[in-house]
C-alpha cells in the first residue's frame, strides 16, 4: 500500500494477442488518498494535491490539498450532524467509539505499514497503533460517565431544584498533532466526539496516510456521516479558516508555533469561539488521556425549576 507512486511493469504481447505480464509479479492496486466529508470520500473540490515524502525522500502519495471550500463544506456537514450526534444516548456513542476500536484492531497491519512508511520503526508503529486502539476504548468508556463526574446538583437557598450538566459545545475544528499522526489524531478527536460534538480535523500535513485510512475505520463504525470530517492539506493555508469560521464553536490547535497560536487566539475573538492549545501534551503518556479533555469542549448548562413546599414544609401552602 502506498509503496510508490509509480510501479514499473513491463508488458509484452503474447502470441494469442492477450496482454501478459512478463514476470509472475502481480500489479499492485494503489490507494487513492481522499478526504472525508459528511460520511463520503470526495477529492478536494480544488483538484489540487501535494506530495509528502518520508525522510528517505520517498514520495508517500498524491494527497488532497484541501481548500477553504473543502473546510466550508466540512463545517456544513459537521453542523448538520450536531443535533443527531449530541442527541444520541451517551451509551450509543460509547458503543460507536468501541466499534471504532474494533475496526482499528482489525486493520492494525495496514496502519502499522503506513506508520512505517512514515518513518516509524516497526516497534514504535505497533506501539502507536495499540495505544490508539486503547485510547478509543478509554473514551468509549467515558461517554456515559463524564457527565456524572462533572455535573452537580446545586443546593440553592430558594425553593428551586437546580442542576448543572456539561453539554456539547457544537462544531469543533481541530488541527491535529503533526508528529504522532495516528495516536495524536485519535487522542484529540475521541474526547471531542465522546462529548457529543462534531468536528473537522486537519490531519498531519507531513504524515497524512494513516489519517486518511482512519477515516475508513470511522466509515465502518456506525459513526453517522458528518460527525468526524478529515481533511488533508497545509496548516499555513488553512489555520486561519479553521479559527475564523463563524459557525465553529471551538478550535483545538496542537502545535507549538507561537505566531500561529497568537493569531488563532486573536481570530477566535471574532465569535468568541473557545480555543485550546494542546501543544505540551505527550500523547504517549498517561497525561495524554483524561476526561478533562472532554470537558474542554463542553458547556456547563444550569437549569432551574421551582419546587413546591420546601420553604413551608409541613405548613401546607
Amino acid at each position: 500500500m502506498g509503496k510508490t507512486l509509480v510501479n514499473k511493469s513491463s508488458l509484452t504481447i503474447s502470441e494469442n494477442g492477450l496482454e501478459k505480464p512478463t514476470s509472475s509479479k502481480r500489479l499492485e492496486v494503489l490507494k487513492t488518498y481522499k478526504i472525508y466529508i459528511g460520511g463520503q470520500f470526495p477529492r478536494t473540490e480544488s483538484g489540487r494535491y501535494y506530495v509528502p515524502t518520508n525522510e528517505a525522500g520517498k514520495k508517500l502519495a498524491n494527497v488532497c490539498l484541501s481548500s477553504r471550500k473543502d473546510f466550508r463544506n466540512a463545517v456544513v456537514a459537521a453542523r448538520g450532524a450536531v443535533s443527531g450526534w449530541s442527541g444520541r444516548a451517551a451509551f450509543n456513542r460509547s458503543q460507536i467509539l468501541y466499534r471504532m476500536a474494533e475496526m482499528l484492531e482489525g486493520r492494525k497491519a495496514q496502519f502499522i505499514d503506513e506508520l512505517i512508511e512514515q518513518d516509524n520503526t516497526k516497534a514504535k508503529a505497533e506501539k502507536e497503533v495499540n495505544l490508539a486502539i486503547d485510547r478509543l476504548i478509554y473514551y468509549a468508556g467515558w461517554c456515559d460517565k463524564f457527565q456524572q463526574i462533572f455535573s452537580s446538583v446545586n443546593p440553592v437557598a430558594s425553593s428551586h431544584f437546580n442542576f448543572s450538566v456539561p453539554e456539547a459545545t457544537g462544531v469543533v475544528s481541530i488541527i491535529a498533532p503533526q508528529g504522532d499522526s495516528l495516536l495524536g489524531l485519535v487522542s484529540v478527536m475521541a474526547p471531542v466526539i465522546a462529548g457529543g460534538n462534531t468536528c473537522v480535523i486537519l490531519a498531519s500535513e507531513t504524515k497524512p496516510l494513516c489519517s486518511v485510512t482512519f477515516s475508513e475505520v470511522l466509515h465502518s463504525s456506525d459513526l453517522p456521516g458528518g460527525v468526524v470530517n478529515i481533511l488533508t492539506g497545509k496548516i499555513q493555508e488553512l489555520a486561519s479558516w479553521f479559527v475564523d469560521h463563524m459557525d465553529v464553536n471551538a478550535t483545538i490547535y496542537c502545535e507549538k508555533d507561537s505566531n500561529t497560536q497568537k493569531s488563532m487566539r486573536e481570530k477566535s475573538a471574532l465569535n468568541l469561539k473557545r480555543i485550546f492549545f494542546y501543544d505540551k501534551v505527550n500523547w504517549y503518556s498517561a497525561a495524554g488521556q483524561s476526561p478533562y479533555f472532554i470537558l474542554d469542549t463542553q458547556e456547563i448548562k444550569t437549569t432551574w425549576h421551582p419546587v413546591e413546599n420546601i420553604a413551608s414544609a409541613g405548613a401546607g401552602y
Partner: protein
Amino acid sequence: MSVTKKKSRTNPKRENGKSNTIKLKFDTSWSYAPAPESKSAASIKPQYDLFINGEWQKPLSKKYFETFNPATEEKLSEVADAGSADVDKAVKAARNAYDNVWKKMVPKERAKYIFRIARMIQERARELAIIETLDGGKPIRESRDFDVPTAANHFFYYAGWADKLEYAFPNRKAVPLGVAGQIIPWNFPLLMAAWKIAPAIATGNTVVLKTAESTPLTALKLAEIIEESGLPPGVVNIITGAGETGAALVNHPGVDKIAFTGSTDVGKIIQRAIAGTHKKATLELGGKAANIIFDDAPIDQAVEGVINGIYFNQGHVCCAGSRLYVQESIAKEVIRKLKDRMSSLIVGDPMDKNTDIGAINSRSQLETIQKYLKIGREEGAEMYESGCPLPGKGYWCRPTLFTNVAQSNRIAQEEIFGPVLSVLTFRTDDEVIEKANNSPYGLSAGVWTDKGSKIFNMTRRMRAGVIWANTFNKFDPSSPFGGYKESGFGREGGLHGLAAYVTLENV
C-alpha cells in the same frame, strides 16, 4: 370620618361580549405615601484614593473623576483615576502578596479571612445598600433584598471551598494561577465584585479589581471592609478608572488571568489583547434571552416572571429576558396581563422603598435605550409604555414593551440593556426553539409550561448557560452562571466557578 368613596357600583358595560372594553383601574384613590430610605445610615467621603497593598494610596496619575447619583444628577464623590503606573503598582502588590503570603497560607486560614469578610458585609448591609442605590440608581428594595445579601452569601459560599479544593477536581491538584485582573460592570457593582473576588482568593490567587467608571463606591466600601478584616495587604487591590485603566490591567504582563464582565464588544477586544500571552480568561458578556410561554403555562406566574425578567434592575441585566415568545393562542391574554402588571410598577426615586424601577444608570445608557425605542417604532413594532409619572431630574425610562415584533427586527436581536421587552409570537415547539436559538448570544433562557416532558425537551435544546423553567432571574452562589456562544466563556458561581481560577496538575 368615612372611607366611602364616590363612584359607580354598577358593573362596567360589555359591548357584544368583547372583553377588551373592560379595564381595571390601577390609579387608585388609596396610594402609597413616600417611604424614602434615610441617607444618614451611610457615609460617603468626598474623595477616594486607590486601595493598593492594604493602604489608601494617592493616584500617581494625580487625577480624580466624579461619580454621580443618576437619579438626581448630583455629585456624590470623586475617585482616583488609576493610570498605568498605578495599575503597575497594584499588580506588583498583588504579585508580592501572592508569592510571599497568600499562596503559602494554610487554606483553612485563607477560608477564615473570607468568612470574616462575608460577615462584615452583612453587618454593614444597610450602608452598602444605600450607597449602591445612590451611586447606581437601582431601587433600594433590590440593593437591600438582592445585591448586598447575595454578595455576602457569595463570600460565604467560596470561603468554605478554600480548604476543600482536593474534592472539587477528581484526580487532579488545583493550583492557583497567580494574579487575577478583574474588571466589573456598573449594573451590579458590589455583587460583581463579590463574584470576582471570592472565588479568586478562595483558590489562592491575589486580585487587582477595577470598578466600573460610573459605580465605584460600593467596591471602595468593600475595600474598607477588607482593610478592616485584616486581610494581608495586597491580596485584594481595588482600583478605579475608566476603559484605559482596564486596558492597562489587561495588558499588564504581571497578570495571569483576566476575569471580565461587560459588553461582548469589549470582551472581544480583551480576547484579542491577550492573544500570544499565557493569560487565561473568563468572559461574562451580553445576552438577548428568550423567555417562552406555552399555552399550558401557569400564566399569572409566567407574567410575573416576564416582568421580573425584563424590568429587574431597569433591565440592566445581561441575562434579562428581553425576547418574549408567546404561543399565539394566548398572546392577547398575556399581553393584557403584562400591561396590567406594568401599571402597578412604580418608577421613581430609587431610595423610596416602594420604587420598582429606579434610574437609568447614566445619560449615555439612557440615550442608547432611547435610540432603540426609536428604532423599534421605525421598524413598525407597536410600542406601549406604562403611564406612571417620572421625576423631573435624573435619567428615567418607563417600563416599555413592543408588540408586533418580527424576529428580524433589531429590537429582537440586539441587546438594549434597558426596561424594554420585545414580544413575539409562535405556533409550535420546533418553531420557537429555532427562534430562541437564533441569536449570537447564549447566556440565559426561560420556558413556561406545565408539562414536564416539554420542559426537559426545551431546556435541553435551548443553547444557553442558564435556563430557568417556570421561573426567571434566579441567582445563587452555589449555582454556576455563564454563557454559550458570544455571551462569553467560563462559569462564575458554584463548583464550576472554581475552575476559572486554577490550573489542574496531575497527582
